């Protein structure tokens, strides 16, 4: 029950994240998949990363730093970072 609750809330976090990323960066939601490149899919330049940080802060109340992005390549990496920050 507890595990299921955690899983559900985590899935909700992922779905919400896909929603606001696709809306903000005008990208097909179906392309936001764990195996896809975060940078290439969202077509991020260095300035866009600031928008991403703002979005994550506003929607998930997580404050990310430049260091946090060093190991992130895919959305899967990104989700793991979010999960770690949310302590889920």
């Amino acid at each position: 029950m507890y595990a299921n609750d955690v899983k559900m809330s985590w899935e909700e976090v992922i779905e919400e994240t896909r929603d606001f990323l696709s809306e903000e960066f005008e990208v097909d939601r179906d392309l936001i998949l764990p195996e896809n490149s975060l940078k290439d899919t969202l077509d991020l330049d260095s300035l866009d990363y600031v928008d991403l940080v703002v979005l994550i802060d506003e929607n998930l109340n997580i404050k990310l730093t430049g260091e946090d992005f060093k190991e992130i390549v895919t959305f899967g990496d990104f989700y793991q970072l979010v999960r770690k920050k949310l302590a889920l």
Partner: protein
Amino acid sequence: MLVAKEAITDYIPHRAPFVMVGNLVSATRERFESDFEIAGDNVLVRDGFFQETGLIEHMAQTCAASFGYLDKEEGRAPKIGFIGAVSKVLVTELPPVGATIHTVVTPLHQLGNIYLVKGESSLDGRILLGCELKIVVSE
């Protein structure tokens, strides 16, 4: 007042005729405040009014002066910053020649050497410009 307009070029790289900030009123890592008197011979004045581009440049130079002041206070050499992006711009009024505008800027986020700031310029309590800037500071 932290820096009078006569000394403002000690803190920014800009030079006449493109100095668009006057006195630096206050500066902390959380809030910058400046003023600027619109001179008749300002290169961004048209038909007696300071233009939108001038208001945005004034806001950016408020950031430059504040970062420069804070760096100097903390014993570091001032860095050069550039406007990376301008967004959420709302201009409601242009100030006339002779007016002194007042600007408050709040840094919202920092990611590496990029700062997202939000600012408002006003004249006699009326908001002239609101916008967000991404300022890229040279490493």
